[in-house]
């Protein structure tokens, strides 16, 4: 009889790295939220940091602002990114469409670029100094519509969300495309003999069959958006201007934890914000796992 030690050897490296660098710090962060620092001594204060975060108007205002902005950011993604992704996938999956691989690869290019590139590139393009956006609008006679969108409180967040949509539309496109390819040809042909083709075939046959994939892209979007940071930081800086109008939880966490300008970093308040983000993401994932995923009927072919 051979020993069973090889199982331990196979599992150990992955489990150790994952536990030490991911799970332990995750729980340590939740624990640190219950402490504060007085005279360079770490002392236990229970839920006081959360009382400050939700009760002290200086903190709670920033928190609810960031949370509200984050929901708007997510809402724009669900409303614009995922429908466009589904539409592009539906077009690309059309049988015998020419140049489909070319379109697919080209539309995916923004997804591989870093947030830094995307943030600055759009900042330049939308800049009133450079004038690409106004002169392009001028070409179609809509110059009056132009304004410095990223610099205005009312439009900065929506503009950033749309830039993020531009960058990431490739992901729902690819995942839905993959799902559409798995639909057997016989089903579509059977529908055709019933006279269901084109758009109505999409709504009546294909869409119900790809619902599980739509559920997956929704939860991926949710987790990605509620832990977003890079694009806002690259385009607007840590202050998420103008006047915090594009502040989301990620930038709020960064400022609190790491400090900026005159404010010193506070790891304990940072941990409290990280804990709040953890709870929000956990709620989202649970809603998906227990509320949505189990109710969507999966078809096996």
């Amino acid at each position, binding site marked *: 009889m051979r020993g069973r030690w*090889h*199982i331990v050897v*196979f*599992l150990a*490296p*992955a*489990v150790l*790295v*994952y536990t030490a*660098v*991911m*799970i*332990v*710090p*995750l729980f*340590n*962060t939740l624990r640190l939220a219950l402490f504060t620092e007085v005279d360079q001594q770490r002392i236990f204060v229970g839920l006081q940091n959360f009382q400050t975060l939700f009760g002290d108007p200086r903190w709670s205002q920033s928190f609810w602002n960031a949370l509200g902005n984050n929901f708007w950011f997510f809402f724009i993604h669900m409303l614009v990114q995922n429908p*466009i992704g589904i*539409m592009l996938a539906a077009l690309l999956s059309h049988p015998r469409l*020419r140049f489909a691989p070319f*379109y*697919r*690869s*080209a*539309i*995916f*290019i*923004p*997804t*591989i*670029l*870093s*947030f*830094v*590139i995307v943030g600055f*590139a*759009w900042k*330049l*393009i939308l800049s009133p*100094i*450079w*004038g690409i956006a106004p002169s*392009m609008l001028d070409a179609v006679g809509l110059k009056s519509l132009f304004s410095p969108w990223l610099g205005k409180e009312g439009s900065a967040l929506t503009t950033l969300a749309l830039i993020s949509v*531009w960058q990431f539309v490739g992901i729902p496109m690819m*995942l839905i495309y*993959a799902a559409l390819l798995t639909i057997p040809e016989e089903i579509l042909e059977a529908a055709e003999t019933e006279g269901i*083709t*084109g758009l109505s075939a999409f709504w009546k046959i294909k869409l119900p069959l790809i619902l599980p994939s739509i559920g997956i892209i929704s939860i991926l979007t949710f*987790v990605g958006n509620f*832990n977003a*940071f*890079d694009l806002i*930081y*690259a385009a607007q800086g840590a202050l998420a201007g103008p006047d915090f109008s594009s502040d989301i939880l*990620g930038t709020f966490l960064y400022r609190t934890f*790491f400090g900026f300008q005159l404010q010193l970093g506070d790891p304990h308040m*940072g941990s409290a914000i*990280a804990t709040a983000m953890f709870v929000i*993401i956990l709620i989202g*994932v649970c809603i998906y796992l227990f509320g949505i995923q189990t109710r969507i009927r999966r078809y096996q072919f």
Partner: protein
Amino acid sequence: MSQARRNPLAVTAMHAILIAYTLIALFPVFEILINSFKTRRAIFREPLALPNAETFSTIGYQTVFQQGDFALYLQNSLIVTVASLFFILVYGAMAAFALAEYRFKGNMLMGLYLALGIMIPIRIGTVAILEMMVATGLVNTLWALILVYTAQGLPLAVFILSEFMRQVSDDLKNAGRVDGLSEYTIFFRLVLPLVRPALATVAVFNMIPIWNDLWFPLILAPSEETKTLTLGSQVFIGQFVTDWNAVLSALSMAILPALILYLIFSRQLIRGLTSGAVK
């Protein structure tokens, strides 16, 4: 075949939509690239025009090469990405093999434990990760980044790879056992070569987020010697924000490696995304 599928009007409309969206996707990248090769005056006068003999200039690239240490940043990014991918693949494949191959107490539980990290972003633990890296002296080293990215990549890697390892034939492994091969030899010599396509998929999935990450380089390794290309270009652009030639050139230089990687691996990436590996 139905009429709708052959209707030339519908086909034209489909191409029109796809071409329009392709233009939207590529236009900003194209604008940055062409303007990085123009004089300052031409950048502002004719932003949409291609550079010609009169407007061609590489002054921006000269500034970038004089002021920023982009060769070092590129080297750091390459080291971090390649090392992280190596550990994700080797450790991930080993754990996936243990979960897929052996029946032992707690197998299911271990699989669930490792799967937790698929949905929970590692960034939530940043405060404690930084404390740990400071305590162990790893802050401002590339190891800090490699460890974090390895931990971040492992859950999905184990999940995808164990699916594939279940499909490897038992006859092959049992034949190896009859021949007296050790479990280690069976894994490294027989199983690993068979799941190469899955390994490539996992590598490509992890490559882009690691290469593009700004958060952890900014927090764990912001020193000049350890800056990655993403952080380096962010800092550089922040400093030269009014020097449009330099900013456009720095952006182009950051776009280039990503584009090259994409051109090399796009087939693998698209096959991975569409093969249902992430379903």
